[in-house]
């Protein structure tokens, strides 16, 4: 450690009221609290300036390029099987969600029984093209199905999964990025692409002081007679087709999850 980085570490320790440090690294999670993967995402979300976050997960050391509250990618990994290095050295992209999901599976495996996760914040190192922004922390939470309220799934994911017999197809997005689909979304794609935000803006103009979760269900909203709905809570959104006879159950479920 250089004198400069030692000074930074000491200043960070002084600035952090409740943080615990081990060997100069800040403890993000210990004995599973808070949930390790959630803690890592939270750390990414708190990182605005370009930095290299060095996360130590029970001896597996990941160096992550982070900037603008986004994970740009893994620079390298140490202390794990060589196969994992296939995930390193490239910038995560929104048009290649599969790679981000694979990384999520890998991290979830590392974090599953992790006893201690620590982080050090180092100066940024180059990774890929600087114009490639990576994936927002908010989207990572959805893509990796983390763990909003200790339930193991985000609210929207809970809602969609909990009503899966009645919801025949859906598009689920977090922070504007599609994080999951199910069923035949042919009819839902144009709603998500062309109608969702326009409707939301016009609806907000009508009820200007309304905020919080919103669910709009249209019985017969699709020309094949199916019912369709849009939903949003926090930075999550979904478009889904549902069995119209199940409207009472769907409304009750939505109310329970969002209140």
């Amino acid at each position: 450690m250089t004198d400069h980085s030692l000074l930074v570490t000491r200043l960070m320790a002084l600035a952090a009221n409740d943080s615990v440090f081990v060997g100069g690294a800040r403890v993000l999670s210990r004995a599973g609290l808070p949930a390790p993967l959630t803690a890592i995402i939270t750390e990414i979300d708190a990182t605005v300036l370009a930095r290299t976050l060095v996360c130590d997960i029970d001896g597996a050391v990941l160096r992550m390029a982070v900037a603008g509250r986004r994970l740009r990618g893994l620079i390298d990994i140490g202390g794990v099987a060589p196969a994992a290095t296939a995930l390193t050295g490239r910038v995560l992209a929104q048009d290649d969600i599969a790679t981000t999901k694979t990384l999520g599976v890998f991290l979830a495996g590392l974090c599953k029984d992790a006893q201690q996760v620590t982080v050090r914040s180092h100066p940024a190192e180059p990774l890929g093209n600087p114009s490639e922004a990576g994936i927002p922390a908010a989207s990572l939470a959805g893509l990796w199905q983390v763990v909003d309220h200790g339930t193991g799934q985000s609210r929207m994911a809970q809602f969609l999964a909990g009503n899966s017999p009645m919801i025949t197809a859906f598009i689920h997005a977090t922070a504007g990025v599609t994080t999951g689909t199910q069923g035949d979304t042919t009819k839902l794609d144009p709603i998500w692409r062309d109608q969702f935000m326009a409707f939301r803006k016009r609806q907000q103009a009508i009820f200007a002081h309304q905020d919080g979760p919103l669910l709009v269900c249209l019985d017969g909203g699709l020309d094949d007679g199916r019912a369709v709905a849009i939903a949003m809570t926090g930075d999550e959104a979904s478009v889904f087709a549902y069995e119209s006879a199940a409207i009472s159950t769907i409304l009750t479920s939505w109310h329970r999850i969002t209140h």
Partner: protein
Amino acid sequence: MVAEALDRLHDRHPGCETLAFADLSTQMVLITNAKTTFRREGLDSLCAEAALAFGTDREPAIGDGAARTVFVATRDHLRIYLRSAHEPHDVLCCVCAHDTAIDFFLQDARACLETISHDV
């Protein structure tokens, strides 16, 4: 007659505090139940939201079909909009509590709407 029909519907479903019969072609609420707590601006907003949600024949706001019933669940209310089967411009705007017995209410509300729409 129309006012009485709305009041009867409210009596059967007191959790639905506001019941307003509206004309989408003019986007005007024509009459409400007597005990509504909504003022004129609030009623105008209900009508505007109904018009937005049902869209037009050429341009539905959501999807590509002609919806007959729309449910808008917010933090505070459940708003239900029903469109008449015979007069597509006639709608019933309902502001209900979240614990409303939906299936029971829909059955009564649709019958009420079709009666009013036929009589007016």
